[in-house]
């Protein structure tokens, strides 16, 4: 259980209990993507606002397990303020890290790096990636 303990004790519980940037905004300047994992019930909506090539804001809302909900919060904190290309690079790196693919270790994932531990629980990779996939969706919408 040591792996599990490490995983939960770090950033995850903090963001699960005190999610940042939670709650959606009714503003046409935001692109919205809703992703659902019908098998487990994770249900996440992510919004992003891109201005002059910079991620101005990210909002999220939904229901799910602690890994799913906390990763949405961590994602928003990590990516707000980044320029769009960097945000895309970080997101891509994060997903590659989770799915055990080769990834660019020089990219700074900031707090999101703790989700590396999720690799030890393959059944949970989806939980940790769903919010990031939704963010990538909002970027595609904005392009």
């Amino acid at each position, binding site marked *: 259980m040591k792996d*599990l*303990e490490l995983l*939960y004790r770090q950033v995850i519980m903090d963001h699960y*209990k005190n999610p940042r940037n939670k709650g959606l905004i009714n503003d046409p300047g935001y692109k919205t993507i809703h992703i659902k994992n019908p098998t487990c*019930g*994770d249900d996440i909506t992510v919004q992003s606002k891109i201005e002059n090539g910079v991620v101005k804001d990210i909002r999220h809302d939904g229901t*799910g*397990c602690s*890994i*799913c909900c906390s990763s949405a919060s961590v994602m928003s904190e990590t990516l707000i303020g980044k320029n769009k290309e960097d945000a895309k690079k970080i997101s891509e790196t994060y997903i590659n890290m989770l799915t055990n693919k080769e990834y660019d270790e020089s990219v700074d994932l900031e707090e999101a790096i703790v989700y590396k531990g999720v690799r030890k629980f393959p059944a949970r990779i989806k939980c940790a990636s769903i919010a990031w996939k939704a963010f990538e969706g909002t970027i595609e919408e904005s392009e």
Partner: protein
Amino acid sequence: MDPYILKKDFPVLNDETLVYLDTAASSLKPIQVIKKLDEYYEKYSVNVHRGVYNLSYIATELYEDSRRKVSEFINADFSEIIFTRGASSALNLVATSYGLNNLTSVDEIIVSELEHHSQVLPWQNVSNITKAKLVYVPLDIEGRITIENFKKVLNKNTKIVALNYISNVMGYISPIKEIIRLSHEAGALVSVDAAQAAPHIAIDVKDIDCDFLAFSGHKMLGPTGIGVLYGKRKLLDEMPPIEFGGDMNDNVNLYDASWKEVPYKFETGTPIIAGAIGLGAAIDYLKEVGLDNIAKHELELKDYTVKKLEEIEDIVIYNKNADTGIIAFNIEGVHPHDAVTFFDGDNICMRAGHHCAQLIIKWLKVVATLRVSFYLYNTIEDCDKFVESVKGARDFFKSVGF
């Protein structure tokens, strides 16, 4: 029956640390079934109903002998057994072939929130296309289908009643025989989802008098990819095939064709030959152990475990009075997906989520549940290990701040 001896037949359980509590999703397979599959592929892996050579004759004999075993297993006639991919495709066959061709906007279809998606969605589709009205039996306070509530929705417009024999989330046995009697009185047909019943209790289709009944092989020690639709001969004769192609046809002309007799008109293409033969072996195994013994054993394990779980704080059980070996529960404040990772760490396989039955999850007003389900290979030690793991999970998640 002795589960300690039976366990030895299941190669997956060679790992003695493994506790398998997800039979409601799929059962493990005994060596007798696995060997039967190998035997087909090694000794006579040819097509059925086609070859005029000896090997094909043998394969056909074995395939059809499995149909005989299935028919005897549920007390049906040989020609009333259609092999399908599973219970889902069997229930879809009824809805598509019977439902789409016989229902209209004046008709009503009775389903319930206790159904698996494969029973409710095909009829939702029929309702959307034909405009027949989809009606839900109100569940009682425990989440059961009761005769009293069933009578409230049954009327002269009811044309189809599509309900489960045993719920895959709550483990309740529906009063199906009485439901069928009342439905027939009202002039309706009844299609029974028996996916959770066939592995666990003895079924007699003549006694309950159902019109259709479906189940899957893989939940009853058989291979994946094989399932069964039982239908009354008279109904099947009148129903059109929903898939067309090889083997199901009789005479083929340029602009029309005729079909073989049932069951063959519903079995186009090369069937799941090994799967059907394997299912026959699974039925042999279940008969040897005895379904009554299996049902009794599972209920004992369920009652024992519920009693233990009730002693643990922060555990919510949704179906304490289940009639079969299924427990749906949660650890207060812990999302089931978080919890199930802890159980996985203790090498306990169980389910977390919607169990392909979102309507009952919504009815329970929860996001999802944990579920354990018992079978003939589970022991009291499995229950104890599981209960200890529940305590460990509860303590762990509290300690990290849930």
